[in-house]
């Protein structure tokens, strides 16, 4: 049974079809949610919300685009709203100030590149962070990001450019090694 048939059966209230669609997409949704939140409990909550909302609104899915694309737009909406609710935005804004200090700090103080990278990404403004993760890590297009964030593709490009610039600065100590 292909995805179009599955969605048609879900619209009729077929629970087995719901489960089949869930199995096909849950990993991707879960890991995107985890990538954005960094917490398994939040990723679990977000994933559940995504599928509940998707099944509730399955009538809105017209089948013009792949179900996965439609589902991931819901995913981004749920995740971003969820992150706002847990007030991680404010925490990251506060950490942003520390990002500049990280840039000027000596390399020996924080030798772990992975940790520095994680800190730098967390320190990004939320729009930049989300855009960077969605585009560069998860592979969404600027149009999809703009739609999910309620902005334009141009805004998404600008956010991505800012994010990359900040990350380059934050990880400048490692730049020589990478280029070589």
């Amino acid at each position: 049974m292909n995805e179009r048939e599955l969605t048609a059966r879900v619209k009729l209230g077929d629970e087995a079809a719901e489960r089949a669609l869930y199995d096909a997409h849950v990993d991707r949704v879960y890991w995107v949610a985890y990538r954005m939140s960094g917490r398994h409990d939040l990723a679990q909550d977000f994933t559940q919300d995504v599928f509940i909302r998707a099944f509730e609104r399955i009538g809105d899915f017209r089948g013009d685009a792949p179900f996965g694309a439609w589902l991931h737009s819901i995913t981004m909406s749920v995740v971003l709203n969820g992150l706002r609710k847990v007030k991680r935005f404010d925490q990251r804004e506060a950490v942003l100030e520390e990002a500049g200090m990280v840039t000027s700090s000596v390399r020996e103080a924080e030798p772990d590149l992975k940790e520095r990278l994680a800190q730098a990404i967390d320190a990004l403004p939320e729009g930049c962070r989300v855009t960077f993760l969605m585009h560069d890590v998860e592979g969404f297009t600027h149009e999809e990001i703009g739609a999910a964030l309620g902005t334009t593709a141009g805004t998404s490009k600008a956010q991505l450019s800012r994010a990359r610039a900040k990350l380059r600065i934050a990880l400048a100590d490692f730049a020589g090694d990478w280029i070589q």
Partner: protein
Amino acid sequence: MTDDHMNDQPNDAIQDERIRALAAGHYNAPDGSVPRDAMWSQISAARRVARAGVAPVAAIAPAAEAVEQGTDVIPMASRRRTRTIVVWRWSAAIAAGLLLAFAFGLKYGQLSNTTLPVKTAVNTPATPKRIDPPLGAPEGPSPSPTPNGGEPSRSPRQNPATHPSSEPLAPSVPRDLASADTAATTLYRAAAVQTLMQAEAVLTAYRGVEATGRDPQAMQQAARWARDVLSSTRLLIDSPAGRDPQMRALFTDLELVLAQIVQLSGTPLQDSERDLIDRAMRDRDLLPRLRSAVPAGSATS
């Protein structure tokens, strides 16, 4: 991604690619397995709740089919809704009637005080033996009150003192102050009749609830209903309709019993409280008096 590096330095693309790869591999990267079944149990539970939320609509369907098939099955929820609508319609009608009556009373009462100062005393019989129903209503074979349907000799303009309460329910257009006062009295009486009908229904409903298991919800519904009728009753006590001693006594007794129902029905009734209400109704012979005061056929109007 090619147009994303148009304004960057040559090495920026390399750095960006390294950062991207590093982030994809290490920043909140997937670790472990996805708790599929745990999440699905939550999702399916939520879906079941959502489906259950739609269920009442489906549950009505069999009843609707039964109605289509000609069986007299009406869902309980529909009955309650209908009864509530009826109560509110009655309450609105009573309130509108009382307001209209008070407006007439204020307007013409002031005028009549200047021109006919002893009008009220004339209108009230000294020793009324019974509550006079509207003209032609209670005793004749045709119970419906007939507006302006009485004999010409019983016109209120011709004999207002001896037949103050035998006015038809629908007043004629007043031509002078006397007829205006009569019209106001008629309106008060119409409001009184409606209130008494409501009161009879409330008391009957209360006794029905008492007799059939004392459902708390039904009891509270009766109490709410009684509260509405109590308000109208208290207004009527102080209105010209309450000047009739017999009617006033009926209103006063009704007020007492309704107040008891309102006060006591909010909580589970004790046996003594139920006895109190029952005794008050029985000692005052309330329901028979209400039924005799309400003209036959008024309930269908």
